């Protein structure tokens, strides 16, 4: 919106949606759409402020990604770019039914558990994080995988694991077919040994 005073400080009556501003920021708009957004931004400081918020949000998310403190499923391309940017990635690979001895050190930035599974036929896949007795503690529902893949790369919060005592964590992948019935795709055991100074237990 154009401010009659030219200062652009009035509240905008047609503010640009923040998601559109994010599209503009990451440069994926078609040229005519981008030009329209830019013209609006040159006449409206209200939307300029909203864009600054989106830029701040994008920067905050980038920082979170670099810290490795999020629990999330990641792609190989993401891990490759993370490594290229100088972030230290520690990765453990584990087959269905397998177990692995694992740890994190002060030098690690991101921790990945790569679990192998046959995902073909699964319409939806959940990841269940269980305690040492196999009792489900947390379920990540409908994780971003598709049936063509043979493994899932899971990023565990390194902030959490750097402070965690030695422990066993069981992880399960469960798939759902067209009828919605649940099927175990794989169970994986991580035997975490604390290698940083700290308490022996929670």
């Amino acid at each position, binding site marked *: 919106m154009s401010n009659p005073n030219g200062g652009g400080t009035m509240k905008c009556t047609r503010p640009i949606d923040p998601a559109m501003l994010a599209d503009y920021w990451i440069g994926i708009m078609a040229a005519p759409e981008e030009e329209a957004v830019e013209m609006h931004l040159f006449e409206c400081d209200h939307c*300029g402020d909203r864009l600054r918020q989106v830029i701040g949000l*994008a*920067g905050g998310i980038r920082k*979170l990604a670099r810290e490795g403190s999020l629990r*999330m*499923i990641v792609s190989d391309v993401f891990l490759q*770019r*993370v490594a290229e940017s100088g972030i230290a990635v520690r990765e453990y690979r584990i087959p269905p039914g397998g177990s692995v001895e694992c740890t994190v050190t002060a030098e690690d930035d991101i921790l990945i558990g790569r679990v192998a599974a046959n995902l073909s036929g699964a319409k939806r896949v959940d990841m269940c994080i269980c305690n040492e007795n196999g009792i489900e503690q947390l379920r990540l529902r409908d994780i971003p995988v*598709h049936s063509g893949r043979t493994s899932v790369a899971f990023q565990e919060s390194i902030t959490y694991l750097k402070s965690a005592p030695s422990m066993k964590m069981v992880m399960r992948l469960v798939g759902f077919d067209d009828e919605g019935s649940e099927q175990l795709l794989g169970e994986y055991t991580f035997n975490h040994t604390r290698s940083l100074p700290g308490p022996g237990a929670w």
Partner: protein
Amino acid sequence: MSIELNDAELVLQIGSGDQNAEAELFRRMAPRVRLYGLRHLRDEAAADDLTQMVLMTTIEALRARRLREPEKLAHFVLGTCRVTVLDQRRGVQRKERILERFGPDLVKPPAMSTPYLDHDQLTRCVQNLRERERTVVVMTFFDEQTGADVAGFLGVSEANLRVIRHRAIHELRKCMEGAA
């Protein structure tokens, strides 16, 4: 000093040699030019340089009364931004020419305020997103991966990816505003 002039009046005042009007032009346009610079140059120092170059070029044009339609100041400044960035990409040394012409009189762009972001709250908000949404926003913003990369990983179309990304951004904003 704040001057309640519209863009056309501002242009005319600068044309008549009013230095306060020039200062107002800087105050009004510098944040917009800098945002443009951040978007296209991806570098704060480069965006600051662009701001100086574009505004000095603009002031020079306005002092010489070369803007035929004063009410189109914003169009003119945006156009100057586009030409300057294109010139930079072509390697044209406009910066040196402008520095030579204006020398020590060059006005430093005003400092921009960055919105405060509660990092802990953002962590909670990102962690509360659905799994696909979290993966999409992190992969998107970490190094601005292309839609094709992320869509390929999720096994969805780029149109569907856009829907997921937009929903995630709305969720994040709602979550961050709710905590403010």
